[in-house]
């Protein structure tokens, strides 16, 4: 069964830079938060700006656009105040986490590498609904057993940051 993924804007750009995006789109069912579509415009490779057109991919049916309702985003923000994490995310990240939080699509996982976003997920007890880039690439069979990717996408880093997020949760609760 195909993985259901909701990649963060930064992950979408990272996958383009690594050259894995097209393969991931074929092998997993990719969803994107509506605000993320406006945030991802291009990436850089060898000093050359290469455009990314997510709207076209949505229109072509290659990826699915999802909406995180503003009212639910507002409710989520209220919860984040307790952990002082309510001003650390941008619109796309907040909408993405809202989509996961409200279970707009069951079994959907947020593919993320941004530390503040991961900490937010940890504080909201949403570790199981998040996945690292490395894990995605291994699950899809794109990354072989002995192959490595840059540390910022690694599973080890991902686990460590979630653990840090859990400490914030415990201290605040």
């Amino acid at each position: 069964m195909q993985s259901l993924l909701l990649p963060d804007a930064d992950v979408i750009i990272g996958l383009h830079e690594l050259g894995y995006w097209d393969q991931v789109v074929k092998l997993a069912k990719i969803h994107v938060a509506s605000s993320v579509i406006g945030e991802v415009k291009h990436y850089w490779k060898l000093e050359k700006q290469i455009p990314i057109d997510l709207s076209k991919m949505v229109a072509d049916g290659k990826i699915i656009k999802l909406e995180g309702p503003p009212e639910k985003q507002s409710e989520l923000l209220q919860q984040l105040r307790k952990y002082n994490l309510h001003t650390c995310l941008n619109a796309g990240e907040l909408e993405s986490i809202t989509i996961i939080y409200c279970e707009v699509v069951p079994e959907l996982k947020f593919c993320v590498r941004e530390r503040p976003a991961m900490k937010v997920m940890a504080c909201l007890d949403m570790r199981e609904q998040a996945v690292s880039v490395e894990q995605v690439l291994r699950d899809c069979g794109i990354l072989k057993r002995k192959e490595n990717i840059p540390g910022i996408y690694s599973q080890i880093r991902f686990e460590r940051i979630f653990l840090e997020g859990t400490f914030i949760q415990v201290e605040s609760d």
Partner: protein
Amino acid sequence: MSENFKLKLGQKLKLVREKLGLTLEKVAAKLEFENYQTLSAIENGLRNIKAEELARLSKIYFRDITFFLNLDEEEETNDLVFWRECKNMGQAKEKEQEFRKYCYNYYELEKKLGLPYQCKLNPLDLKADDFDYGKIEEIAEQNLNLMQLGSRPACSLRKILEEKYNLKILYYDLGNCGSAASSVGNFGAAVLINSSEPLWRRNFDLAHELFHILTWKIFRHDDVHTKDNEKSLVEKWADAFAASLLMPATEIPKEFKARLDQEGKISLVDVISIAKEFEVSTVALMWRLVTLSLLSRNTVEKVLALHEFVEIDRVERINHNKTAPDFSEKYVSLAFQAHAKDLISKGKLAEFLNITIGDVSKKLAGYGYCLEEISDAKLTPA
């Protein structure tokens, strides 16, 4: 979406739009709506707003999306903005809000990093009646010494005001809205400079705005902005303060006299070279030389009317016109630190730098920061 949320959010959106002086039609066009009735329906709580529409409106209105999502959050107090040479107050409203947004971004970064945000400049303890041109010269000299600006004040003014006195300095293209603006609010004190102006003009504008910050509680808005768009007396004093601060009465005569020839005359090229050295405009220097009784008013008026002089000045300065950065080094440093310490995400960092997420690494590299290498590194104390 509940009716209450829809209604309250709509009211908030309407309030903000009206405050910016924007019409429904104009905003609807920016949102690429087919007609303005859709936006009107959102504002009146008759239609659900989509997440992406709210994200785009936040950008158009220069507010953080969390401001709209937190329905109980009141609009920040109406921080007053003093404009310099504002030709279109209508257009200036949007620029004012953009200015406020970055002032509050700056403040938020300082708060997140646990740094002081209040401006450390001491307001002048004077009354409006105490001011005249002699007093202005005296105040400028006191500040020159107090701030330790050195013999070429324009070269150090920006850095000292920002680093030592916590004055927030922002640059962006103001188009026809004006040369500069200043504001004091909950965020501290801030100055906005038109980045499209040449270096010497930006220096003068900064010194001019410094006068407004120092006298913020002394002069009222009406004292600064006259209804007939004539330069007010306060604005003339601010110009005089800027001239005295950037061209010190102790330094300019020394440089002037050192360049006099055997006949006791000075060439136009030498005057231009002094202006370049002090990073001020040649015109401002000329008038300062009059104030310091080094040239006569009559001589200066004749020189400024010479086409030849204007041309020499232009050519001499062509390579001296450094463009202003989008953001000051301090602001970028704060944003970078906040991201490196996990206080803001990369997406939020992109918002603070007014760029897309894909450009963050490249932008930071331009300021000498490497995003990827530092973010995970931690040192163990000895």
